């Protein structure tokens, strides 16, 4: 009974050239089939770059080199051999052939402009933290109220106090030196950023909003300038 055989060599265009997939069969037959196919379409294929998907076949270096040379005689450039066999992949690499081709990407869908920000975790405290109160989190802390002496704020991220900061505050408690501490009146008992510790100088002037940050290994406080 005659059954129509699957073509043992199929070609299709990919982004970087032609991808040839080989079907079942012995290597010499396959090679001949491929070369015949190329010869037939010689005019069309002249100068083409060809990637060869050999499946799980193990092909020795001699065979692969021969194929490359014979394709080259036909003015076709073999530039890649794809295989699920690591031995074949290694052989191809030895011969200076690529073993991966970029798979064609699905056409890009145009996404809407990304104006929705995920944000980061923060604790919002809308009260004055009196002596003995403690806020501790790995995220940021925002206090709407004062932080009195004896209160503690410890944050993995930044600390923002919309009020008077007079207690102990530790920003970047997990070692983040880029963390900052902002307050309308920055006058903490002790201020820590990451591993650095600072104490407020005696202030006599009118309180102003300030931000404390690490600058060249030191904690500095400067006017809270939103434009920064």
């Amino acid at each position, binding site marked *: 009974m005659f059954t129509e055989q699957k073509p043992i060599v199929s070609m299709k265009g990919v982004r970087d050239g032609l991808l040839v997939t080989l079907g079942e069969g012995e290597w010499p037959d396959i090679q001949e089939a491929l070369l015949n196919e190329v010869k037939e379409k010689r005019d069309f294929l002249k100068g083409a770059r060809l990637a060869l998907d050999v499946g799980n076949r193990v092909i020795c270096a001699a065979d692969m080199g021969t194929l490359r040379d014979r394709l080259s005689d036909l003015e076709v450039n073999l530039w890649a051999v794809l295989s699920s066999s690591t031995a074949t992949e290694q052989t191809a690499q030895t011969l200076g052939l690529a073993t991966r081709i970029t798979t064609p990407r699905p056409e890009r869908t145009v996404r809407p402009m990304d104006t929705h920000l995920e944000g980061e975790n923060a604790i919002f405290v809308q009260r*004055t*933290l*009196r*002596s*003995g*109160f403690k806020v501790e989190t790995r995220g940021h802390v925002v206090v709407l109220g*004062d932080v*009195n*002496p*004896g209160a503690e704020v410890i944050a993995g991220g930044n600390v923002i106090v919309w009020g008077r900061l*007079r207690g102990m505050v530790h920003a970047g408690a997990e070692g983040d030196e880029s963390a900052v501490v902002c307050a309308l009146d920055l006058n903490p008992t002790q201020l820590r950023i990451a591993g650095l510790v600072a104490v407020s100088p005696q202030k006599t002037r009118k309180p102003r909003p300030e931000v404390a940050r690490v600058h060249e290994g030191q904690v500095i406080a400067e006017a809270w300038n939103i434009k920064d």
Partner: protein
Amino acid sequence: MAAKVVTVTSGKGGVGKTTTTANLAVALACQGQKVVCIDGDIGLRNLDVVLGLENRIVYDLVDLVEGRCRLRQAMIKDKRIPELYLIPAAQTRDKSAVSPSDMVRLCDEIRPEVDWILIDSPAGIERGFRNSIAPADIVLVVTNPEVSAVRDADRIIGLVEAEEKGPARLIINRVNPVLTKRGDMLDPDDVLELLAVELIGIIPEDESVVVSTNRGQPVAFEGTSKAGVAFRNVARRLQGEQVPFLNLQENNNGFFGRFTRLLKPGRV
């Protein structure tokens, strides 16, 4: 009658809780109110001494809570004023002899019979403080114009808020106008700025307080001393009266002048 329960507390010791309690009780009673004081400082009682009732103690708070006497038996009547009573603390027990719910039950029992129940809290933030605060309708925090006392007051105010008994009201005790004027003592303005609670009294430093405490005759009895007047003003404010703060300095432009202006309604 449904009494208001007022707890006097401070956190720090020695700022004048007991003196304040005794004087407020006397002042309220002198103003025609029926008052019961409860000494919450079990094991270190003082209120009986300050009120001059030490030698009349038969039953105490712990006897009452443990059912060894009736309420009337534990209430010592002050014979100098018509309606002033004291329930003294036990001296031979400790704070754990009474629980917060005992205090609530006791106050609920007294409430229908009087106008005011004043509880003198012990120093600290432990069991005795919790016992004293549990039945409170109003909490008065006493502080001195000293950094350490203000710190503790801040902590106490926070705890009172956490117990949902707040907002506490503040009494600044032992203010020395001369030292304050020189800048050697915290200004009441500074204290208020930090604590941010309603002020209900400023009591000037007054030698007569020491004398009267030792005699068991609170200054609020007689009408001459500044501290006595100040305590009586606090008692009137507790009853809802608007009373201007004492001018402790001759010069009205001093801090008390500013102070009085700051305390006009509308200020938080």
